[in-house]
Structure formats: C-alpha cells, structure tokens
C-alpha cells in the first residue's frame, strides 16, 4: 500500500513535463526542487541532530561558486606575484567538485562550531555564512563580486560527438533535479535508519545521556554536517548550471530562512516533511504573485505563516496529518489501543 503510493507519486512527478506545456511553471517547479533538496539537507541537521544551522545557505553558495569557477576557469593572484589559474573543466567534474568542497567546508565548520550549542551554534553558523558572502562580494578578481559570474556552461553528459544529453532546456533540467532529489532522499533515508542515524536522534533527544552510553557526540554531529553540507552544495551546483548566473546574493540570509521555514512547516525530523514544506513554500510565492500580491507582502505572509506554524503546528504538517490519520484508523479498529498508536506516531 505504502510502496504503491510512493510509486504513484514518483510516476506523477516524472510525468509532469509530458503534460505541462507552461514553461514558466516548469521553471518554478525546478527551482522548488532545488530548494527541496537544500531543505532536505538542512533537515538532516535541524530535524535529526537537533542543531539549528542558520548558515546553511553558505554551503549552497559554495557549491554554486566552486562549480561555476571550475567550469569557467579562473586566474587569480593569491599574492601580488603568485598567480594561480585554472582552465575550464567539464561541468560534471565541476558539480562533483562543488559538492565535495561544500562537504569539506561542512567538515571544518562541524569541527569548529560543535564546540558550542544552542544560541551560540546558531550565531556561529550565521557568522560563517556572512563572512563567506562578504568574501564573494569583495574578492572581485575571483568571483567578479557584484558583477556576477555569467555564461556558466550547462551540463552535458555522454561521449562528445557520439551521444550527448544537454541539460539546457527545462524538461531535461527538471529530470536532473528530480533524479538528484530522489538520490538525496534515499541517502538521507538510509542514513537516518542506520546505526549512525539512531545515534543522531539519541543526541537530539538527550545529549548527556547519549554520550554516557558511548555515542561519540562530535563524530556523529560532524558526519551529519558533512553529508548535509555536501547535499546543499549539490543543490547549489544544480542551481548554478540551471540559472547560469551566480552572484553574491545566493548567500542571502533570507534563503536560509526559506529553507528553515520549509523544514519546520513540513515537519522536522521526518523524511517527507521538507518535501511537503518545500513544495508548499516553493509554490506559495507564485500563487501569491498570480494573485497580484506585491513581493514585500509575500514576505510578510511568509513571516506571519512561520509564526502561525510554530504556534499551531509545532511538529509540522506531516506529523500532524499522520497523527490525525492514525487516530482515525485507531478509532475504526477498536482492538488496537488508540493511546499506543498515537504515542508511536508522535515520534
């Protein structure tokens, strides 16, 4: 039953470009998909280890910049008379490198930032993202600063001259994002259902207790950060080669906030939560736009919705719906104690 539902959902997603001929909506769906991947990666940290990282957009931007620079090539003076240059590399290599470099940054930040917790951790991650943004803005020789990196090549896969798929048009990019999204979903699912995932959840629930029974706190937190950062970086590389222009605005704090809203509203610590939240908050701006709501008003709505979600659905949409579904089922089948089912469902 559940498997069939998943399959039907996937088939529906895969069929979208076949019947949807409005390219603008397809573009919105691609951007939503990219943000869903970023939100899923944030959920690994926020939902499963319980660490609120508000610098997540830094990994997204690092992925985008590394991949763009690798495929465009660059030449930069590290010291006045020491020049480093690189020739353009293929796009798949750039995307891989962007993902890996974002993961490395995740490792470094994890090692450093997990010395502190709570509000301090939040502020370290924000500071990190802001420093990276200012570097992207000011290191003009490398990043072109506010002039942005233009003409970023699109992805081509296959053997040149023989058989090549070009990810230039929207349907191809849609399938690319969908494939990466499914891959990320599977990785996160395997991770959180593994021993490491249980260790992360134990840390979230009670860190002193978890460490007292031998869970290596730093190791699992850093592992989660590396995977999460690499995924956000991958989302960034998808963004760079789809939009094909990258400027320091990819580091804007508001994007982190968007990801956080997606995760919280969908349900942190659930696999489907960021997907549901991501689709709702990815499409909401377009719904508001078609209702001719000015952009500032959209953001006001975002902020108010965020407060309302925290007030009324503190666990998020997915757990709320699941609880409602299970309690209804429990009411239908009286031999199952209702209390036990809801208790099991609340986590």
């Amino acid at each position: 039953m559940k498997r069939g539902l998943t399959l039907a959902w996937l088939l529906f997603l895969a069929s979208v470009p076949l019947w949807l001929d409005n390219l603008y909506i397809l573009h919105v769906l691609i951007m939503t998909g990219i943000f869903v991947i970023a939100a899923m990666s944030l959920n690994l940290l926020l939902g499963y280890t319980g660490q609120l990282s508000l610098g997540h957009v830094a990994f997204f931007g690092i992925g985008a910049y590394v991949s763009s620079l690798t495929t465009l090539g660059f030449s930069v003076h590290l010291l006045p008379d020491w020049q480093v240059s690189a020739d353009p590399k293929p796009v798949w290599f750039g995307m891989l490198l962007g993902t890996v470099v974002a993961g490395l940054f995740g490792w470094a930040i994890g090692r450093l930032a997990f010395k502190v917790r709570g509000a301090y951790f939040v502020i370290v991650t924000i500071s990190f993202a802001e420093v990276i943004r200012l570097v992207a803005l000011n290191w003009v020789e490398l990043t072109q600063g506010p002039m942005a990196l233009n003409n970023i090549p699109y992805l081509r896969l296959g053997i040149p001259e023989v058989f090549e798929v070009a990810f230039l048009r929207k349907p191809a990019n849609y399938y690319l994002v969908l494939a990466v999204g499914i891959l990320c979903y599977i990785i996160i699912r395997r991770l959180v259902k593994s021993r490491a995932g249980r260790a992360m959840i134990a840390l979230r629930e009670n860190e002193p207790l978890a460490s007292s029974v031998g869970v290596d706190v730093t190791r699992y937190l850093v592992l989660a950060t590396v995977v999460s950062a690499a995924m956000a970086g991958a989302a960034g590389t998808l963004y760079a080669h789809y939009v094909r222009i990258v400027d320091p605005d990819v580091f804007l704090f508001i994007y982190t906030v968007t990801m956080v809203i997606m995760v919280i509203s969908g349900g942190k610590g659930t696999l489907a939560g960021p997907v549901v939240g991501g689709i709702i908050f990815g499409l909401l701006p377009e719904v508001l736009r078609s209702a001719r709501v000015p952009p500032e008003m959209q953001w006001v709505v975002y902020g108010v919705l965020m407060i309302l979600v925290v007030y009324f659905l503190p666990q998020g949409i997915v757990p709320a719906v699941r609880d409602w579904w299970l309690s209804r089922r429990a009411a239908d089948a009286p031999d199952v104690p209702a209390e036990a089912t809801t208790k099991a469902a609340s986590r």
Partner: protein
Amino acid sequence: MDQFLQHVLNALILGGTYALLGIGLTLIFGIMRVVNFAHGELYAFGAYMMYLWVMVLGTNFYLALPLAVLLGVMLGALMEFVLLRKMRGADIDTTMLIMIGAWIALQNTQQLTWTGVAKSIDSPFPTSPLVLGSVSVSWNRLFVFIVALALIGATYVIINRTRLGKAMRATFQDRDTAALMGVDINRIYTATFALGSGLAAAAGALLGPVFVVYPTMGDLASLKAFAIVILGGLGSIPGATIGGFILAFMEELGAGYVSSGYRDAMGFLLIIIILLVKPTGLFAQKERIG
C-alpha cells in the same frame, strides 16, 4: 599617527550606539532566554519613526527623538504581549523561530510602508565639524555619542537602583524563585522586552540622521548586536557595553588598515574567534547554554 587618532575617535563615537544595541539584546536574552532576531528591526523602526516625525510631520528634532524611542518601547511591549506571552515554557529554538518570523514580517512591512528608497533625515547641527587639534568630529556624531552614553547610564540606574531593576535581576538569576517571592514575571518580561526594544530604537533614531535610513538596515544591526553580546557574554550588561566599543574599534581599524570592504566581516570573525577560544564571552556571569 593623526590618522590613527582619527580612527580611535570615530570608533569611540560609533561604540556608544553599538553598546546601546548590545545592551538591549543582552537584557532580553539574559532575562527572557529569547534570542531576539527582530532586534535589528526595532533599530530600523526607531530610524523610520525619526524620519516620520522630523521629515514627514515636521516635528522639532529634539522632541522627535524621545517620541521615536517611546514608539519603539511600545512596539516592543506589544510584540512581547502578542508573540511571546503564550510561549513562556517553550524551548529556545521555538521562540527563536517566532522572532525570525517577526523579523521577516516587520522588515517587509517597513519596506511596503516606506519603499526601498533610502531616506535621509535633516539634523539641526552645523555642517562644519568640530576640530580638536589634528582630528575632527561632526557635531551630529558628538551628539549621538553623548545621548548614547546618557542612555547607557540610565539603563545601569534602572537595572541596579530601582525596584523594577531588582526584580529583573532576580528573574535573571532564578525565574521560579523570583516568582515565588512575588515578582510578577509577565510584567518583568514585558518591561524587559520593551526596555531592550527601546534601546535598539534609540540607537536607530540616533544613527538615522548620521547615515541614511533603509528597510534592510536592521539586518547588519542584528548581527552586530549578536557579535557584541557574544563578545561580552550573554546576559552581561557591562560585557555588552565594552563589547560594543571593542567591535567598533575592530571595525574602524580593520576598515582603515586592512580593507574597507571587509569592515562588516570584522564582527563575524570576532564572533567565530571568541566562540572558539572562550565560548562564555569575556565577562559572562553564567555558563554557556545548551
């Protein structure tokens, strides 16, 4: 050497308003355990109210300043009442998310009301600066510095010399015991949030005429306030005061001798370094949380 002295003087002047921002934030965190992401919006609100009174309604500059601060106090009290009162027992992440929501909503309301165009506010001060030997300072900045110092002093008096301040300090040390001793916690929380917001609005109202007023001006103010508070240790008022001046010195000297583009990065580098070396801040009264 003259250049260095000028930087020091600029930093001293800037440090006063930074300290105001930091004290407001550290009060709210220390007493209420709320990480107030909307703090910078109160700063922007103060600046816009100054614009409203001086430029739109044509009120006297010296009258507009206390009016703007008063409106900031009222907005703070309202926010506490509407957003935080029902969330008393909630954990720190939950209230943080509420404040992030409030920040986005407030900032965009301001953008909607005043448009994104930067506004400048006329001030009644002479344009020729005050020259002291080899350094000079504008009269407007000098006024900002003096008022900021006066407000810092007033905050110290409120916290250390009044009944309200005593109740605040008691709540800071132990909320439940304070409640048992008859302190009305709800009243203390509203007063704390209003006071902290008023200080942020005062910083905005003071700096509005020096710089320009624009809707996203609160973002950097928030982040700098966090830097100051972490530097001084969360919940420490002397720490926030000194932290404000340290941040101003780092920014001013960093902009003067390293690169002006990285001026705003100084605060964040400072946060990262402090948290790695001494996570409790320089003057912490309590252990780090979490």
